[in-house]
């Protein structure tokens, strides 16, 4: 009887102590992310989306001034003028052309790159917003056929965030080759939960 009771005592002691000291844990969620201020002025700054080496899409902030400074292959891009350099907020067409011109030195230094082909010279594009404001339609100067998922997301996210601050609009793309694609950006965790 004594022996059994002793064994029970020892077993419960071991269970209760559950290992002394500080134990390892799994990954435990603790609150939300840190929301940082990135000083994005929608009147003068553009949000462009490039992807990092692991395939994730990251936004970069570029002021309108820098677009002229750092065009594709160093030169200014045609087709910027019709929209007007001083238009506020920055027109979506200008933002798309900036995206197509690819990452600048700083972006590349941070390991960001683009999956989009460069825009041909004298490229034109049209962005229309049908009534309702929930959709954005864009005719692009590049062929959509053969573009990867990352490339399409770059386009969609850039256009969506240029159109609205929350980037929730549905974007319909039509390529020069007539191929069309559509989608939402979906980077916002809150919007992902809502839909």
């Amino acid at each position, binding site marked *: 009887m*004594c022996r059994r*009771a*002793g064994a029970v*005592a020892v077993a*419960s*002691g071991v269970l*209760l*102590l*559950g290992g*002394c*000291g*500080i*134990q*390892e*844990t*799994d*990954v*435990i*969620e*603790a*609150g*939300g*992310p*840190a*929301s*940082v*201020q*990135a*000083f*994005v002025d929608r009147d003068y700054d553009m*949000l462009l989306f490039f992807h*990092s*080496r*692991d395939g*994730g*899409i*990251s*936004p*970069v*902030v570029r002021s309108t001034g820098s677009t002229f400074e750092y065009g594709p292959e160093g030169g200014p891009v045609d087709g910027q003028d019709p929209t007007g350099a001083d238009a506020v907020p920055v027109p979506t067409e200008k933002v798309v052309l900036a995206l197509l011109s690819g990452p600048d030195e*700083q*972006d590349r*230094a*941070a*390991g*960001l790159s683009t999956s989009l082909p460069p825009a041909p010279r004298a490229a034109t594009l049209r962005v229309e917003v049908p009534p309702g404001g929930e959709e954005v339609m864009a005719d692009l100067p590049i062929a959509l056929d053969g573009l990867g998922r990352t490339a399409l997301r770059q386009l969609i996210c850039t256009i969506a*965030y240029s159109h*609205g*601050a*929350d*980037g*929730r609009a549905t974007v319909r793309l039509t390529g020069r080759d007539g191929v069309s694609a559509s989608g939402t950006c979906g*980077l*916002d*965790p*809150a*919007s992902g939960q809502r839909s």
Partner: protein
Amino acid sequence: MTSGPGPARRLLRGLSGAGGRRRGTDDGTPDDGGAPGDAPAGRARARAFGLRTRLVFAFLLVAAVSAGTTSALTYREARNALLKTAQDTAVSSFRDQVQQTGWTLPVRGEGLEEVLRDIARKGKPRPWVVFAEYGSVRASSGENPVSTVITPELRRAARAHPSGSFERVVKDGVPYLTIAMPTVLRTGPEGVLPSGLVLYAVMRMTDEQVNVDALLVAARDGALPGLVIALIPGLIAARSVLRPVRELRQAAQSMGSGRLDTRITVRGSDELADLARTFNDSAGKLERSVRELREAEARARRFASDVSHELRTPLTGMLAVTEVLDEDAGRLDPDTARAVRLVSTETGKLAVLVEDLMEISRFDARAAELNTDEVDVAETIRKTLQNRHWTDGRVRTELPSGIRARLDPRRFDIVIANLVGNALRHGGAPVTVSLRGEARSSGPPVLIAQVTDSGPGIRPDVLPHIFDRFYKADAARTRSAGSGLGLAITQENVRLHGGTVRAGNLPGGGAVFTVEIPLRPEEAGG
């Protein structure tokens, strides 16, 4: 005359029975005296798992379980609270620090380390090492840009869900708290956008470890005195049970050694008190019945003694008369002469019986005395045989001279005479009386006297009773020359000398009686 011996025999049978019973108690007493000799060994063996040990162990066990459980639970809760506080403080302050820092997108590698060091310095509860990962940019406030402590799981979790998370990691025995803090851009009133920048903080939990270890020590140090304190009630409880038990055992022992007036003090009203009360009641009853028994025995003994004394006086007169009658018997007519001789013979036997009864009464009353004298044993035996006129070849002797012993010559004479007379009467001639001294491995040397007859021997069913009083080997032969007390008197006499007498049979037939008396001149007198 014919009805006389009947009641007297019944009476004496009863007396011998009482004597036998008394002898039983006498024999029992040394056994009881011997029993405590074995007891210490048994007691020592019993002590290992005795009541005290078991009670103390039970108390210790209960105390250990309760103290252990309490300490363990307290320890666990305190440890968890301590760790939770440290972790929550670290996570929330890290988030605050990251939020208060201005970031440019894309994140520039240059100057990033300075920013990280700034964050690390403000680390709570202790400075962290901060790591930043953005695209291919890797920077830290420490020496290595990439941490070796942060696990892939944490990285994956930070990349998959934009929410803060932490993980405790033990690396090389050092616990670390690793926090992952993905950053988001606030793009609108509600909209947030993962920026791709993930910050990690790594904090050594050495202080927490010290605190947790201190908790453990405190828990242990709190539990151990509890155990020690639990010993005290354990011992007290054991004592409260053991003391009555010990008293009971001593009382039982004391009763066993003959002190029947032993009683236990009854304390309290628990089961042990009941036991003590029962013991006292039983002891009282036992004492009463033993006293009654002793009184009855004493009465019977006194009666037998009185009867024989009362008988002796008229018998003396009768003996004198019968002697005269015997002398004159020749002048009477034959029938009357036969009757007169019969009366004379029976009166003589009655006188012998009364003498023997008186002798036995003296033994029973412990009034028999040993008047020792240093004698030549062979000479004494020879004298005995001569006095009884047993020198006519029916009795052979093997008596080596030179064996001297301290004996009561009168009693030794009775012993030899009774044995030889018994052998001649019930066995067959020739009877051999032999004498020798023998050394014993333990104890003093003994004097051995043997009386052997040439008769058919003693029946085995008779052997155990041969020394009983009035025991007749042949039930049909109720009347014999002896009083029926001869061998009993012999045995009492040998015992008085500190010796033993045994009856047995020779392999070839014939009974043999062996008397062994220790040759202890100085002690034989006692």
